[in-house]
């Protein structure tokens, strides 16, 4: 049994002009200790997926259907109270915006200690001692002093470290990181990724990392799920996905990545782009979701939605022509 099994997840939002199917029939699983990346461009439903797992989607206007089994228990069937016992304890989350995700009027120590007091029944003093340890663990210098400070006294990178300390305080089994490095500058990004990798080794948590940055994926992930328009279009081990992407969308994503130093070695090429926009999720889509932007679209693509098929061992993709494409490439 996998640690997390998401089956046919559908997160829809009621809006004034129709239902927005932000996530539409997504299935995937995460094994204990594994790092899985979910990639895709803005609006593909990857953040909504992460928020759905912890049921942080406001309902209404949102509505989550399907099943999300964590250690065999369906999170969607839990009471609010049971769900609160899972959040921050067994599953915790790091958000994209370190500048605004910490409460500005509470000390860092209080915010780390809160989860410990909630889930481990620690006293305020114990929680503060543990908060100091956590700050040390995430590499913040002078933790004794920092624990009494407020978020505005810390830099962006330090705040993200504090977020990680909060997330890991209760030794969760699953850590969901929603674009954890997007808001940070490049050197800090590398530090945070290193930190996450180190901590994964010491804490042993499984990680679901949500990102649009393929560099981050290559850096940390073991398995990759590519999302497009609220669905999974491809899934494979990280090496296979980068080595032989099967879905035209994944190929497009990889083609749009700049190669470091390519202008110096002389093989400079214009970056490829994927023409067009993500289709509106408010209409029921006919055929393949990527048909409107795919360079290989045929009549079949426009009429029949391709099923997710295993195109190679452990490598699945949703494309009628995936094998042919791979052979041709």
């Amino acid at each position, binding site marked *: 049994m996998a640690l997390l099994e998401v089956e046919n997840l559908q997160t829809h939002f009621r809006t004034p002009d129709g239902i927005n199917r932000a996530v539409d029939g997504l299935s995937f699983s995460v094994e204990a200790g594994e790092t899985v990346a979910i990639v895709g461009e803005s609006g593909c439903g990857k953040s909504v997926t992460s928020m759905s797992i912890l049921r*942080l989607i406001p309902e209404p206007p949102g509505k989550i259907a399907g099943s999300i089994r964590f250690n065999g228990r369906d999170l969607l069937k839990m009471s609010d109270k049971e769900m609160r016992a899972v959040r*921050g304890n067994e599953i915790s989350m790091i*958000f994209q915006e370190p500048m605004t995700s*910490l409460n*500005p*009027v509470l000390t860092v120590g209080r915010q780390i200690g*809160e989860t410990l007091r909630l889930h481990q029944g620690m006293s305020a003093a114990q929680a503060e001692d543990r908060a100091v340890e956590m700050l040390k663990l995430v590499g913040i210098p002078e933790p004794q002093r920092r624990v009494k400070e407020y978020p*505005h006294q810390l830099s962006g990178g330090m705040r993200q470290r504090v977020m990680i300390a*909060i997330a890991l305080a209760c030794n969760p089994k699953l850590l969901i990181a929603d674009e954890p490095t997007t808001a940070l500058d490049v050197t800090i990004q590398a530090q945070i990724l290193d930190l996450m990798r180190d901590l994964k080794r010491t804490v042993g948590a499984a990680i679901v990392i949500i990102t649009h940055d393929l560099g981050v994926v290559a850096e940390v992930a073991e398995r990759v799920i590519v999302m497009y328009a609220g669905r999974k279009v491809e899934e494979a081990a990280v090496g296979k996905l980068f080595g032989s992407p099967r879905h035209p969308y994944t190929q497009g994503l990889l083609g749009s990545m700049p190669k470091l130093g390519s202008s110096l070695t002389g093989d400079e090429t214009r970056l490829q782009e994927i023409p067009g926009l993500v289709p509106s999720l408010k209409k029921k889509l006919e055929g393949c979701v990527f048909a409107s932007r795919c360079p290989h679209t045929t009549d079949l693509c426009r009429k029949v939605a391709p099923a997710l098929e295993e195109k190679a061992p452990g490598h699945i993709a949703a494309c009628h022509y995936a094998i042919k494409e791979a052979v041709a490439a």
Partner: protein
Amino acid sequence: MFAYVVRRVLATIPVMAIVALFVFSLLYIAPGDPAAVIAGDQATPDDVERIRQSLGLDRPYLVRFGSWVWDILRGDLGVSIFTNLPVATMIKQRIEPTLSLMIVTLCLAVSIAVPMGVVAAWKVGTWIDRMVMGFAVLGFSVPVFVVGYLLAYVFALELDWLPVQGYTAFSQGFVPWIENLILPAVALGSVYIALIARITRATMLEVLQQDYIRTARAKGANQVSILFLHALKNAAVPIVTVIGIGIALLIGGAVVTESVFAIPGLGRLTVDAILRRDYPVIQGVVLLFSFVYVLVNLVIDLLYTLFDPRIRY
């Protein structure tokens, strides 16, 4: 911080000086001659002139202002024209009921209005929210004396739960003291409650949209802790500000409320003094109210640092 307090206290001096100038001019430009009032109907012009000289009314404006301020600084607010008692003594006799009314109203209003606003923001768009907002509109639009008479009719006359009017000193015991103050406090507080509840709701709505609230949820915090710890502390600065500004409402409202409920406080003293053109008393009371208001605002400014660590003085 200490330097800031000293600076703020010093800054109240010019404010109070301007208030004093206004209050003093009130006497100077007011129609009617106090000397003539004191002298009575039978007095000759010579008598009036003598009284005027004994009161110092014949001296120039600035000289009179100077000596008036000097007297006040020594705690001498002058003597009532009507009762011949020192104004300071009269205020001292009347201050307890008004202070009691204000404090009870303040505590009552804050403890009702803030949770009301918080719950309305939490349940935004539901019937609970609409009820709170409906009450707020009602509280704004119905005058204090209407609410006062209505409350007295229902809870005192019909149900006989609470006394109709009057005041019992705190030294007579807490229960009779509070019994007499509940109805006036609710009447006086209705506008105040409406104001605080609305601001609390609006501020909380904004705060609840913030990323750190989502973080708190992701940590497994329960709804009470999210609302009253994570959100309310962030919303505190505007709420505390409006509570402070609202003290002015209470001061104005106290005058009417004390009349409705026959409470022998400063409000009644003020009304009586105005009716009798007892200018020294009016001056004393207005000065006191202004001073209290300036002081309250100073306290509010200092409270900000307690709620928001980003504010430093």
